[in-house]
């Protein structure tokens, strides 16, 4: 059986993380192709329901990338994301999903290398964790 290949959705803010991912490309750095980026204007646009939806639809990991604290293009959107992610992680645990399957990272437009490291590290982490198995028909949580 082929090794399990995780599916990862990456929500990246337009100004920092998506630009950091672009820099990784421009610098011809390599990382594992398991993630696909959805570009949003600000990490604070990411609604907890987007993350839950992704897990429901088969994502094994979700990563949200924003600007570093204090550097948000929209002043403090990333702080809002930080607060939402903290709550959302509690909710994930209640759903029986390992909260570590969701990660929030601050990656600036200048941090192509960091983007690559984060993607590789997170992909390896999720690969070790294995495929996310959600309970059928809203049954009891698997208690991951």
């Amino acid at each position, binding site marked *: 059986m082929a090794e399990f290949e995780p599916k990862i959705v990456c929500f990246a803010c337009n100004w920092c993380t998506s630009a950091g991912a672009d820099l990784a490309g421009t610098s011809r*750095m390599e990382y594992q192709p398991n993630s*696909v980026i959805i570009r949003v204007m600000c990490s604070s*646009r990411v609604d907890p329901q987007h993350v839950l939806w992704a897990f429901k639809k088969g*994502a094994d990991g979700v990563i949200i990338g924003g600007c570093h604290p204090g550097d948000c293009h929209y002043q403090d959107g990333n702080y809002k994301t930080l607060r939402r992610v903290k709550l959302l992680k509690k909710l994930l645990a209640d759903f029986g999903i390992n909260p570590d399957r969701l990660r929030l990272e601050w990656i600036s437009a*200048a941090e192509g290398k960091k983007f690559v490291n984060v993607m590789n590290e997170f992909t390896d982490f999720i690969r070790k964790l294995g495929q996310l198995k959600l309970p059928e028909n809203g049954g009891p949580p698997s208690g991951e």
Partner: protein
Amino acid sequence: MKNKKRTGVFVCHCGINIAGTVDVKKVAATLAKHEGVVLATDYVYMCSDPGQKLIIESIKEKNLDSVVVACCSPTLHESTFRKATNMAGLNPYQCEIANIREQCSWVHKDKEKATAKAIKITKSIVEKVQRNIPLEPISVPLTKRALVIGGGISGIQAALDIANGGYEVILVERSPSIGGHMIQLSETFPTLDCSQCILTPKMVEVSKHPNIKLLTYSEVQEISGFVGNFKVKILKKPTYVDPDACTLCGECAEVCPVVVPNEFDLGLTGRKAIYIPFPQAIPAAYTLDSEHCPGLVPIACGKCIDVCEPKAIDYDMKPQIIEEEVGAIVVATGYDLYEKERMAEYGYGRIPDVLDGLQFERLLSASGPTKGEVLRPSDHRVPKEVVFIQCCGSRDPELHNAYCSKICCMYTAKHAMLYKHHVPDGQAYVFYIDIRSGGKGYEEFVQRATEEDGVVYLRGKVSKVFQQNGKVIVWGVDTLSGKDIQIEADMVVLAMAIRPSRGATELAKILKISVDKDGFFSEAHPKLRPVESMVSGMFLAGMAQGPKDIPETVAQASGAASKVLAMFSADELTHDPIVAEVDENVCCGCKLCISQCPYDARIFDEEKGIVIVNEVLCEGCGACIAACPSGAAQQRNFTDEQILSMVDTILEGEK
């Protein structure tokens, strides 16, 4: 809701940049089968003229209602392809970019996997664009007046440039005179131009300029509004002296019984409670410092008012709130020196003959407390050995600031050189980490200090400075020879780090612009937008944005002014339309979104009981959308439905 059924997909090879790793034919063939896609094709360079022509003709021939170009990052060619789309008669917001180069072909090597990923990316963008709505840029009115905050060289330069461009400027300075730190300097590197001599003509020009309204002893208290339409409240503190009536006779200061340290000379001299900061002050008038004057209740003193012949003094002057409307703001609040209290190991503030760089400037200055003679503050003797210590508080991430203050290498070389010009038989030592002399004529200037003026440069740090037998003993190490060094100096000058001006953080909160980790105002882009702040309509100039020397400050100020002038050259402004909107039938008026909006763009409509969006204020971050519990709030062309459909496409075939 999918409102597009005729999408065209254009896959770019970018030579081998994409086609080398991604099977572009397969991407096009797969996308051709996607729902609603009526054309999917590939071409070697989509951004080339024939490539764009292919898109334009396909839109017309196939009657496309939406376009996806799978190519490089949208930061590069989104505008190119949106313009091409528009030329074919389609709304430009019906064109979206699938980034399959920077975020796919350049970062992966396995062709099969990269192709599969490129297909997912492109499909997700097709799903998005099929739900896009046509948008028009939002028009915003424009007030063609500017506010400049800070009256140092950067603020002066920006104000003059804008005023000379024909627009009105309000220049706000919190101290009693404009001039900033530059007016305190003796000479400037590397030409040794007299600082006052080159700055005072500009100060006079400001005071006489018909387009400049100068508000000194004033502070910005409140700012509301948005680009093109800011409303500003400025507090004008009372000076208790009518500047038009004051004849500068100085009788008031003669009789004033209160002596306090003189800020202009950094405490090296005293001033009275009623004072003029320096003879060339603009506005040219005395100021009564109410904090130290005992006589605002005239029974207590009242000596100055008795001797003032022109009756310029008025104890009943009240603070004034001045309200102005401006279209653009230049922040030029400059710098202060790093807190001396934090440099206890160097004896600053404890040993009278340990000075900071600005104090030494005053000692060197012909208009300074010693009329340009270098004398020790403790006993007024000429110091024969002077130690200059660089990087005091700079480049020290453990204890102080991690950053380089940039100008200290140069001004220390200047200090040492000028000291030698004043005291030819004296000896100057400089402790340094590195010498950073990038700049026109700068390296030559440092060479001149060492070669012509015999300044001794010692590479190493100073561990301790203390007093002994009337001398200031400096313990240090010369890391080049590896030897400990003890110098029995007569005076020590510390090149204190540059830090943001006191009050800059508070001002940032008023302006709602961000500061970096060190407290300097953040520019919009470190390379390509160095004079703009993150907030449109607010620009940065000078040290407020980071340590820099005078020519760089002047250049940035002129850059900020030219941005303002370019803005004012239009009749109105436009604004990206990907803003928040509200479904009035769904919104329940819970107001959660109001707390999320950093731009005050969310307003509660009392009549309808719902929250609406001021499109002009909305910057389109989407924070309020994510907070909306009912789904009434959506971001145009970034709706929940669009994002969820993108997630679906990316994860298609799993579960």
